[in-house]
């Protein structure tokens, strides 16, 4: 009998497509909520992305009680406390996060405080500390990459101690993720590319790392196919709402995949690089993906070869000998990165970022070795291995 075993969990209702935002009032009412608070950032507000959300609610007679639009890119315990204070003062009863990873993580943390009580979110960090369902919570992603709308984790910076606090609980998951193509239509090209490559990495690592399972595989492959088909279309025609929706759905599907099968060395290196060199997460993912796949190649040859079907389509897959498909998958990812570099200068090497110094590679490698993702990488990673991958990614 096989020892195979897996768990798969995603209770988030996905509301996707044309006029999806207009479902928000119905969803909130169904959850017994009528006094929502919006958590977002200044960029989202300035881009006018709140307007259709507010209009959709007001048209159905649902008043937005409060809007907090000052979430910083790296949210902190202080911000969470402030928002929770406003929520309580205004007697809100539900949350709507509108934004990218930071706004969504912040809203998840606020939901913990306003549901479980207290002012110090640090008390709830770690796994298993949240014991009860939280307040009604909807997420409207405005980037197509993080997948935070379907993950049960959040990261908040403890400014007093200068550490990042992880939170992990299935109760953090929102009741619904609302994916509307209007929300990503105005994303600038370099953010579109970086976030889509973030989703591509989530799906690729979900499909090739240790906790892969049949259900996460299905989401991962579907996500890869959508990104491969739609990303360059969107780069060439940013107002293409159909392909924008495809990317947004791919991001959510990749999020469902990796939150159930975890990620590996690309993320470990990316987290460390982001922390040390302050590079955007999606850029790091795009940068490291082929180098890590090459490092893992002999351990993941079979699944990586399978991905060629979703990366390049059936003709290329059929024309490529089975023994060469894994390498061809890496080539396909490299080709996609080259196209993105041509269109928006998304860096392919650490040197191209202009933000990383060669002497920082050792520090990045050391930090990556303590990242939880390294545990799920299919191949054992030593410090020397991590350094070698970084050297290859340098230039």
């Amino acid at each position: 009998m096989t020892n195979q075993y897996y768990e798969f969990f995603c209770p988030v209702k996905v509301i996707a497509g044309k006029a999806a935002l207009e479902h928000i009032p119905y969803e909130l009412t169904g959850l017994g909520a009528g006094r929502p608070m919006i958590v977002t950032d200044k960029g989202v507000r300035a881009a006018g992305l709140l307007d259709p959300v507010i209009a959709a609610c007001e048209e159905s007679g649902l008043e937005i009680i409060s809007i907090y639009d000052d979430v910083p890119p790296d949210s902190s315990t202080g911000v969470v406390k402030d928002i929770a204070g406003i929520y309580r003062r205004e007697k809100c009863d539900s949350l709507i996060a509108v934004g990218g990873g930071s706004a969504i993580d912040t809203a998840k943390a606020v939901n913990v405080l306003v549901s479980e009580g207290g002012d110090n979110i640090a008390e709830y960090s770690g796994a298993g500390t949240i014991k009860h369902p939280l307040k009604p919570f909807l997420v409207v992603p405005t980037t197509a990459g993080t997948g935070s709308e379907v993950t049960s984790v959040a990261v908040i910076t403890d400014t007093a101690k200068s550490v990042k606090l992880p939170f992990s609980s299935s109760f953090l998951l929102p009741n619904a993720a609302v994916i509307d193509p209007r929300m990503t239509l105005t994303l600038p090209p370099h953010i579109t590319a970086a976030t889509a490559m973030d989703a591509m990495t989530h799906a690729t690592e979900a499909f090739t790392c240790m906790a892969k399972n049949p259900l996460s595989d299905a989401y991962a492959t579907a996500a890869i196919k959508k990104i491969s088909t739609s990303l360059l279309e969107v780069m060439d025609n940013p107002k293409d709402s159909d392909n924008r929706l495809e990317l947004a759905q791919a991001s959510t599907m990749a999020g469902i995949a990796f939150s159930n099968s975890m990620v590996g060395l690309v993320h470990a290196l990316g987290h460390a690089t982001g922390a040390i060199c302050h590079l955007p997460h999606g850029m790091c993912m795009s940068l490291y993906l082929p180098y890590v796949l090459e490092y893992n190649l002999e351990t993941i040859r079979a699944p990586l070869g399978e991905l060629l079907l979703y990366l390049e389509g059936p003709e290329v897959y059929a024309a490529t000998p089975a023994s060469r498909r894994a390498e061809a998958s890496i080539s396909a990812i490299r080709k996609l990165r080259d196209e993105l570099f041509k269109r928006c200068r998304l860096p392919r090497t650490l040197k191209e970022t202009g933000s990383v110094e060669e002497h920082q590679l050792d520090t990045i490698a050391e930090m990556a070795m303590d990242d939880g993702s390294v545990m799920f990488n299919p191949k054992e990673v030593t410090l020397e291995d991590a350094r070698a991958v970084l050297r290859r990614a340098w230039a």
Partner: protein
Amino acid sequence: MLAKRIQPMAFQARRLYVELMFQVMGRALQAISEVDASARREARGLPEGFLFEMMVMPDGSRLIVEHVGDGRFHYHGNSAPRPVDLSIRFKHIAHAFLVMSFQEKTSVAFANDRMLVDGDIGYAVRMTRILNRLESFILPRVVAERAVKEYPSNLRLPEKLLSAARIYLKVASNFIETVRA
């Protein structure tokens, strides 16, 4: 019928085996920190006084070791002198048995959600590396390959045998001291 009669005994044997393995692992962690420089180097990344627990939920076998400084561990048995800093918990005795009987690698058990980590995940990764190194030393290669993700290619037989002998000697001495006490 016979199977039903045997089942309680099998469960009891499984519990005793896991309990024994926890006692060996706890003592062996202390021993490897005394004989292996690489394990000590890894352990130095943990704060002094750091308490690590591995246990079976809800209230089964447990081992507790403390980083007493300079990469050295002290085995506390199954009771902690204060709240632990990092706890790795098997969800069920059956899952602990799979790992302790080398039917499932520790890394696979993590991937399969057999265990929960409560505490800093970075420290959990570090402790897993130390446990892997320990298993590579003290188990015959054919068994160790079933226990760790990748058997270290640079671990030569003389080093392995010498280190394993020293670790087992220290584990045995510790057992004897415990019995005498």
